[in-house]
């Protein structure tokens, strides 16, 4: 039995330390490996796309069958889609999130709603596209339009906004609701004046993340609002629009003799959009965390 011998203990300790060191370094390495592809994509696209970026590129209409000029209509279109989606999904999503967090009882009806929301989040984006085509484009006769696309993207964005709103509301301690009511507030007054302001950073983060996903999606707008080429900017919500993700698909597969820098430049613009939104969301989140005191 050499197991318990005293002078072996330090060695065993050393081994444990070594094992721990190796373990930590393995984890570090694995973490590094997971972020490498992201870094790789961003750097590669930035290098390849940077030469295309100029004021003209982001402010001019395309010319020469989109082989030259700028991508303004796609940028504007994406902004319109984002705003449209936001106008529809934000009020609905926040209302539903507040309802679920504050008012809904735990019964079969609420559980059904929750299951629906979770399922909605798991639906492949092309299915949203086909659904939007059937419901908004054809049935409601909105046609291929910004409004059809925004409605379709809203359905896709809703689950994200609903669940982050619900979570943000729940993260504000229950005791504040009791205090608000003890001071003669109604449940809604307490929510509006006390709970909602504290949940707001979380809600805004959810909105940005939801819209960010909407901005980057191609499939839902493919059949509902995106168009190959427009000689002018859309002038009403009933117009079809160009949009960055679809435009990228078009210029990478549909146009012979397309200059590679324009392709990468367009991707870079979309990537910048999405990363900027992510950055804003992170800043809001970390600021709120720093300010939180209870």
């Amino acid at each position: 039995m050499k197991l318990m011998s005293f002078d072996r203990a330090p060695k065993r300790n050393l081994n444990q330390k070594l094992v721990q060191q190796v373990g930590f370094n393995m984890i570090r390495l694995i973490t590094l490996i997971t972020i490498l592809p992201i870094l790789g994509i961003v750097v590669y696209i930035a290098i390849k796309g940077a030469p295309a970026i100029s004021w003209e590129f982001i402010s001019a209409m395309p010319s020469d069958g989109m082989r030259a000029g700028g991508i303004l209509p796609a940028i504007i279109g994406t902004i319109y889609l984002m705003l449209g989606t936001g106008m529809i999904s934000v009020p609905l999503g926040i209302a539903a999130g507040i309802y679920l967090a504050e008012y809904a009882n735990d019964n079969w009806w609420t559980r059904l709603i929750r299951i629906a929301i979770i399922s909605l989040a798991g639906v492949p984006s092309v299915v949203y596209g086909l659904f939007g085509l059937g419901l908004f484009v054809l049935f409601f006769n909105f046609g291929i339009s910004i409004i059809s696309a925004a409605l379709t993207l809203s359905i896709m964005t809703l689950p994200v906004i609903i669940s982050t709103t619900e979570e943000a509301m729940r993260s504000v301690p229950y005791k504040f609701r009791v205090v608000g009511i003890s001071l003669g507030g109604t449940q809604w007054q307490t929510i509006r004046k006390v709970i909602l302001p504290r949940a707001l950073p979380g809600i805004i983060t959810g909105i940005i993340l939801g819209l960010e996903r909407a901005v980057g999606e191609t499939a839902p707008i493919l059949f509902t609002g995106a168009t190959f080429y427009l000689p002018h900017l859309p002038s009403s919500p009933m117009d079809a629009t160009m949009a960055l993700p679809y435009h990228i698909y078009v210029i990478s597969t549909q146009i012979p003799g397309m200059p590679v820098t324009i392709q990468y430049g367009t991707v870079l613009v979309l990537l910048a959009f999405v990363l900027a939104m992510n950055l804003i969301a992170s800043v809001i989140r970390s600021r709120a965390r720093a300010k939180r005191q209870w």
Partner: protein
Amino acid sequence: MGTVKISIRNLHLRYADGKYPLRGIDLEVIENKINVIFGPAGGGKSSLIRVLNRLIDLSDVDELSGEILLDGKNILAKEIDVIALRRRVGVVFSRPIPLPLTIAENISFGLEVAGMKDKRHIAERVEKALREAVLWDEIYDRLDDSAYSLSGGQQQRLCLARVLALEPEVILLDEPTSALDPVSTAKIEQFLEEAKSQYTFLLAPHNQQQAARTADFAAFFLQGKLIEQGPGEEIFFRPTIKETIDYIQGRFG
């Protein structure tokens, strides 16, 4: 003896989870006095306080029966305006729970939800309440700071001030000093003594010394029943019922 402000008759409370904290309470709360309810933990004091301003409505309750007459009107009746009741009967909790707002907003919240809009009028009421709770001199220059920048004792006086701002008739205090140091505790007790000419206090003290120090009237709670009640001096120095005597002499609790 004084005017009866609240008269409780045969009050029973049983929660949906089976807990049965109030088992037939009869109690009179005397106007402009410090009415103390004391006894071992779990005796039903906190539950009684939650019933008296209907915060109990937030809990799942199986049975709530009996009568609570506030100025002769039963506050357990269906037609009672619960919101108005909560403005008349304020509560201070055992731990300071400032709302996650500024110092001033903590007080103006109750005023604003009551429909007060005039900013100057609200500011006056905020100052008045803070002076009353002996907090104004310490914080008048940082009303817009977070309430959580205050010390524990200051926070609890802020919680008192926001109740006072509503100009309630009755103030319920559920072990209001249990999280406070002796100096802060003394400030609260001093406030109670000085302010009782304007309010009716119902206090669940966090220990028996405080009960004996503050009580004009006292009621001994044990396992959901009211064992003995009367003027403070009699209850603490000449109790007549065996359980009260045992508890006061420290045989249990």
